[in-house]
């Protein structure tokens, strides 16, 4: 089939489907109109039932908390799978120093970019802690906090090079943090079962609405998710970056290389 025939077929198919698309588009509710009944019910009930002001957190970590636990395990499994796949070809042993490809150009960082990265990384880390702790109050929560924390760690790599990134962000610690976060979530889900109440039932005091501590069990669950996402993504990035190094070459620990 030539390109012209394919184009003709595409246009014919689009023309044939156009009336159906038009009918659906014109029947849609107007842009931005809140019509979903579920959202209205959640907005009306959850501030009183769960004393949280961030309804997304209330839905994610309480109403459908078990689903979120499944998603969290999915992330854990995906990271584990990637690590197994990559280490399968590279070996389990970790080199003491960052590997270096002989002959690869070393890119000097500008003072300006080093300063921006060194100032930006701690600010971003503090922001991610804020997002995690305020998960039940303001938009955000565990996943966002974890992703922001990883981008803060990436600034260390951007500003100070791979060798220092490798020593400042130890991979075993990141793997530990990932496991710790996932364990915290599982414990929060499973411990209520010991008191013969459904999983993820909050036995902690509910706190005050719009207060930093509000929502009871959702606070530790948010922190667990933040830790698991931070550790998971950091391990993933670390394993990927090891792929671009040759560990058997001469180690150059202090050299910045791109």
């Amino acid at each position, binding site marked *: 089939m030539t390109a012209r025939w394919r184009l003709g077929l595409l246009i014919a198919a689009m023309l044939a489907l156009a009336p159906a698309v038009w009918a659906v588009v014109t029947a849609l509710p107007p842009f931005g109109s809140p019509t979903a009944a579920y959202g209205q019910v959640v907005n009306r009930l959850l501030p009183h039932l769960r004393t949280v002001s961030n309804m997304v957190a209330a839905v994610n970590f309480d109403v459908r908390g078990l689903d979120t636990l499944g998603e969290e395990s999915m992330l854990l499994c995906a990271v584990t799978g990637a690590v197994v796949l990559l280490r399968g070809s590279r070996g389990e042993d970790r080199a003491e120093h960052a590997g270096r490809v002989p002959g690869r150009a070393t890119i000097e960082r500008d003072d300006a970019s080093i300063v921006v990265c060194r100032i930006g990384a701690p600010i971003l880390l503090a922001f991610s802690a804020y997002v995690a702790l305020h998960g039940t109050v303001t938009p955000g929560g565990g996943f*966002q906090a974890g*992703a922001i924390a990883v981008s803060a760690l990436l600034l260390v790599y951007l500003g100070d090079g791979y060798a220092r990134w490798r020593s400042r962000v130890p991979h075993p610690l990141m793997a530990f943090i990932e496991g710790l976060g996932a364990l915290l979530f599982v414990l929060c889900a499973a411990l209520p079962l010991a008191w013969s109440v459904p999983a993820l039932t909050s036995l902690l005091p509910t706190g005050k609405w719009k207060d930093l501590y509000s929502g009871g069990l959702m606070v530790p669950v948010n922190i667990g998710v933040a830790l698991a996402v931070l550790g998971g993504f950091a391990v993933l990035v670390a394993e990927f970056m090891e792929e671009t190094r040759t560990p058997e070459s001469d180690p150059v620990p202090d050299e910045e290389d791109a």
Partner: protein
Amino acid sequence: MKAILAALLLLAACSGLLVVLSRDPKRQVFAIAANGLVLGLLFTALQAPDVALSEIAVGTALTPLLYLVTLAAIAMNRARQ
């Protein structure tokens, strides 16, 4: 507000088109990062700041980095063979 939304939607379509039209993988990565940033702004404009936060962190920082690292690893492997 309507003008900002229209501009952002247009930008999202344009940057998405750029991802498809650019043939060099490295350029595609940067185009996809730009697309992620535009989507993050669009989500902010549509009052979904939590989605915007994850889109900007994952879509413009993490995913592009993993793509770039993968491209570098592929290039290294080719040079060794």
